[in-house]
């Protein structure tokens, strides 16, 4: 990686800057390495150009065009929202991580399916309950981790087991897809944006009803509230935060509750997306937690806590979604899903190594 970079000790690269001032090339290189958003934008452009070129060359099984990209955003919604949940808990520090988030999606989805689909509660009340249950399940994690000092990794592993088990048992492993639930499918349908909608492709409704509000709320929470500042403070150095009068345990606890709440909202979305409340909605295959953590780390969230931005996570979610969508078109049938695993794994390892490198060289990703 460094071989292509102009090294600071090489006088030929920066002869007329004088002193230690880095040359423009070096500055750009450094910005790409330390500004995660910049790197992600570049990667995104590379993926889009590459896939579009393949599409024009006729190498893909379908067109990789704006319409297709817009449709594929339907998968980005739950991924991005859960990655934001991971952002909150990882930023809270002390090895913060939430492996149970996929199970929370399954369990709250089943609760939502039972009260809305079987008992006929109105949608609003059912959504409220799902959010409350999600928050409660997150609070169990939070109490154990923040108050009692359990390590987050193993605690959420245990609750992953427990919640997944409950989700499977609660309705005897059967999905719920009564007409009530099926009518929710319209939540995820594509809509034309008013005024400018003629010129751009239709975007799935979930992007506006779920993703954008969540992004705004989380961004405001992190950047414009005392709570957000405290969260970064405890993630950076919780001893210093304690001595500055920050209620460390309560702040960290709330991060896990918020992650649970977000998972509850995702549960409603996923139920609508599949027109069915599935007991394994968040746990089938590799589950939803792994991709969410991957996207958070890819988005520049430092696993050690205290560093992370909403914009990076959003860009990472979009990058992975569009990369996956492209890969799916590169193969006949279902073979593409395997290469999605390859892409996800390779991108995660690459970004983790990159994070480690930039931390040592430049003092971290900003």
């Amino acid at each position: 990686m460094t071989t292509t970079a102009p090294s600071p000790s090489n006088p030929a690269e920066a002869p007329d800057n004088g002193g230690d001032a880095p040359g423009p090339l070096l500055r750009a290189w450094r910005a790409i390495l330390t500004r995660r958003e910049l790197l992600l934008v570049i990667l995104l452009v590379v993926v889009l150009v590459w896939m579009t070129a393949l599409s024009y060359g006729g190498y893909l099984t379908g067109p990789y065009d704006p319409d297709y990209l817009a449709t594929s955003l339907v998968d980005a919604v739950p991924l991005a929202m859960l990655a934001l949940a991971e952002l909150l808990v990882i930023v809270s520090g002390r090895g913060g991580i939430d492996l149970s988030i996929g199970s929370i999606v399954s369990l709250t989805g089943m609760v939502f399916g039972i009260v809305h689909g079987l008992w006929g509660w109105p949608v609003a009340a059912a959504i409220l309950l799902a959010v409350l249950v999600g928050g409660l399940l997150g609070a169990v994690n939070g109490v154990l981790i923040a108050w009692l000092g359990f390590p987050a990794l193993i605690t959420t592993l245990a609750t992953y087991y427990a919640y997944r088990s409950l989700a499977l048992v609660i309705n005897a492993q059967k999905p719920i897809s009564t007409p009530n639930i099926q009518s929710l499918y319209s939540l995820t349908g594509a809509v034309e944006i008013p005024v400018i909608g003629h010129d751009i492709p239709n975007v799935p409704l979930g992007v506006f009803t779920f993703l954008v509000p969540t992004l705004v709320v989380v961004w405001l929470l992190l950047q414009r509230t005392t709570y957000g500042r405290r969260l970064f403070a405890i993630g950076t150095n919780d001893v210093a935060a304690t001595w500055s009068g920050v209620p460390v345990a309560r702040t960290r606890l709330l991060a896990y509750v918020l992650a649970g709440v977000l998972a509850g909202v995702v549960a409603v979305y996923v139920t609508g997306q599949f027109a069915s409340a599935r007991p394994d909605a968040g746990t089938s295959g590799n589950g939803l937690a792994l991709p969410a953590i991957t996207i958070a780390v890819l988005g520049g969230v430092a696993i050690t806590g205290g560093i992370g931005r909403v914009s990076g996570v959003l860009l990472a979610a979009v990058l992975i979604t569009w990369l996956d969508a492209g890969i799916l078109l590169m193969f006949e049938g279902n073979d593409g899903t395997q290469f999605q695993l390859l892409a996800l794994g390779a991108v995660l390892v690459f970004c983790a190594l990159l994070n480690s490198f930039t931390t040592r060289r430049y003092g971290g990703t900003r």
Partner: protein
Amino acid sequence: MTATSSPPPRTRGARRARGPRVIAPLVSGQEIVLLAVIAVLWVVLGFATPAFLTAGSLRPLFIEVAPIALIGVGMTLVIVAAGIDVSVGSQMMVCGVITARLLVEAHVPLPLAALVSVLVGAVMGAVNGVLIAWGRVHAIIITFGTLNLFQFVGRQIFGSQTVNGIPATLDVFGRGEPGQTLGLPHSFLLTAVIAGVVWWYLRQTPGGRHFYAIGGDALAAELAGIRVRRRVLLAYVVTGALVGLAAIFTIAKGTTTLDQSIGAGEELAVIAAVIIGGTSIMGGRGSVLGTILGALLVQTVTSGVTQLGWPSNLSDLFVGVFVIVAVGTDLLRQRTRRAAR
């Protein structure tokens, strides 16, 4: 942080007088508690379902527990050194499909296939170990990444088909009569032997104690002259190699068909067994004996739930609760020790 809570400086004579107390006791409190819990569960299950305490019911339990316990032995090394490996399930998929196809399509003799499986596992472990030790990235991130990579490799080798007609040579590790000696399944016996060796290595050799030092404080261990990276690499390589062997056990206890679900969720069961066995997730403390008991407890609960006629998925709930209880005990012990100092 280490199992041998740092002894105060003593004279030579005093240390000799105290003798073996400098080394950790042969069994820890947690292990005795685990044994008691398992015994109580067995008695309770024996009363609840008369069929439980029979050879026909206990033998499958030991067959089921063998792969989890075997990988757990390696995972104990990894977690004692303050690491973690969540990619063992995917590793098992790769080893399993390679072995199965070698046996079915190339008619390779079993010992050779087993050797290949162990080597393939060791190579995957080495990939993890190198990335973690030399890339200086947190183990969970790297192994999450390699989990996906190994799964890709495994599915490519499967080629979206199942492997059919697994030969009877594997019966030596199977459920039937050829898989037993004195009524005990071979897979469990082999696991017990390997666990014994690693138990001795961790307890009695300087190399083994290095893992505890690394888990206690990697920087201090490095400064004390321990080759931290090599030890970390070794932990992951051993885990991978044991996954290779466990894959053979897993194929042998199944039917003659191998599908892509092999290894799914294995990592969680293994980590749960290690943690329930009293190994601290923060590193620096734990034993192989505890891991074996932890795996036995997990499997006892799983088969108990099935035999009581409860929904089989309920067993995960109990596993989760056991993990929480085990971690809670560990924390409590740390606090009392810190308070005592």
